[in-house]
């Protein structure tokens, strides 16, 4: 199937289609077989190291500047794992008064502090009226300049 695609003129959309196949398809090599073909491994895939448990991984987007001191800027994509239990100092997503929030998890003896940049944005919860929705493992921060965000590069961490 891939061969048909390769024969078409190589415009950017076709290139992207090729990318569809996560496991790059081997091209047939005519003539003698290259010795390296017996040592092939799948190429590196960034999701191998950023999505540990795909069945329990969810994505959200940061919608405020409350966590800039934690390098979480507005519009960053959040990679959230529900199977990780929260530990002090980690970043968690939780539901509070009608919204999902992202904050630092700081449990204290009699209350839970969910810390942000400023005390005004910090949420304090008494007792155990709290439920962790998931633990934020990392955020994705696109670094492209506006001039570079053209064509398919406009899709980097964007919708």
């Amino acid at each position, binding site marked *: *199937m891939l061969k048909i695609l390769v024969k078409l003129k190589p415009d950017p959309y076709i290139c992207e289609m090729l990318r569809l*196949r996560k496991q790059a398809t081997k091209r047939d090599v005519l003539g003698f077989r290259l010795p390296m073909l017996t040592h092939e491994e799948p190429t590196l895939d960034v999701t191998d190291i950023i999505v540990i448990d795909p069945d329990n991984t969810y994505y959200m987007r940061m919608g405020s500047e409350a966590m800039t001191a934690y390098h979480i800027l507005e519009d960053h994509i959040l990679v959230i794992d529900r199977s990780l239990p929260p530990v002090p100092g980690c970043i968690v997503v939780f539901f509070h008064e009608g919204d999902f929030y992202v904050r630092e998890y700081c449990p204290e003896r009699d209350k839970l502090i969910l810390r942000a940049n400023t005390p005004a944005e910090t949420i304090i919860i008494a007792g155990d009226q709290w439920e962790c929705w998931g633990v934020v493992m990392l955020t994705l921060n696109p670094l492209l300049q506006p001039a570079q965000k053209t064509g398919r590069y406009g899709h980097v961490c964007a919708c």
Partner: protein
Amino acid sequence: MFAHVDINNCYVSCETLFNPTLKGRVVVVLSNNDGCVIARSNEAKAAGIKMGDAEFMVRKQLKELDAVIFSSNYALYADMSARMMNNLARYTYMLMVYSIDEAFLALNNLTVDLEKHVATISENVMQDTGLSITVGVGPTMALAKLANKASKKMKRDYLVLDTPDKIDAVIKDFPIEDVWGVGRQYYEKLKELGVVTAEDFRQLKADLVRQYMTVQGWRLHQELWGIPCNVIKDVADRSKGIESSQSFNTYQTELEQLEEAAAMHAATVAIKLRQQKSMAMMLTIYLRTNKHNEKHDQHYPSLTVKVPFATNSTQQLTKICVQALRAIYQPGYNYLKTGVRATGIITAGEVQYNLFSNYDAGKQDALSNLMDDINARYGRGALRVAAEGYDKTWKMKQEFLSKQYTTNWKDIIVAR
């Protein structure tokens, strides 16, 4: 030992996970075309909303209850179901996905305590998926399913029936109509025999059961005594027929619109065939008018066509489908529904081609695969045959659709 796991109020649970404000409220999910209620929160159940209630019948009641209504968001439910099943598969060597929200797990030869293992499954899966589940465990699949129901009645997360004493205690007053496989017909028959509970049924003589209820009933009888008759199959049987159908949001009279809808159903059937790596030899297309509307003339035509070569190609199936539709369509009727069904299903690869035909199956496969790949990347329907049309005026009603939180980047939640 077997475990039966299901998601409590599955569709409502999925919606609530991404919208926790729904907790404690009356929530219902409507079927295709927002026709009737197909899922209810516990609060909706308590308020007397029934499964299958037509939306327009309970509209007023729902409003009074300040209910939250959803159209079915199958993209979300299917994704959450897959996540649930993959999670469950971690706790067994054999998982049988029984339906979108139910699975059986084989739990033999455990090195840990059974009760402890079940508690772990219950706790971990609920935390990891965020969906609430119930686990029933028993020596047979029927008893596992019964344990699950009993567990729900006791408002417990799980129930393990691993000794005859525990089974006896539950089965004693377990209503026979709630037993797996006892349908309305058997229920009526059993009532005549004075069977009210699962225990009554178990006390019947095996010969008598065989006489009254075919082999299925006999198997159930055995299973209630703890003798396994059903086995877990980790590969689902290939379906014998694949169907796609849908009602229109308004009556359709024009051939063009009907063609578009039928072509879309044919394309859906083709995709399903490819997903299960099979091909169809027959294609049935049918049209329906609204039988509830006595003022309209009724017309229920249907046509089954033998496909020249068994195929799963979108292009071939839509072509045949549109031709068949033209043959059965008659102007002047108000059509409400159309559907396409593929039968005579065989494994792809078993197909016989005619030496003298110029049908190029390889090309068709390449085209279909290409369509699947592009649609996987850009969303279902990005690339489709022209017959499916562009402006889908006949499209189904989905007034209360929630977002595709897990399957569309545009719909992911924005946190603060």
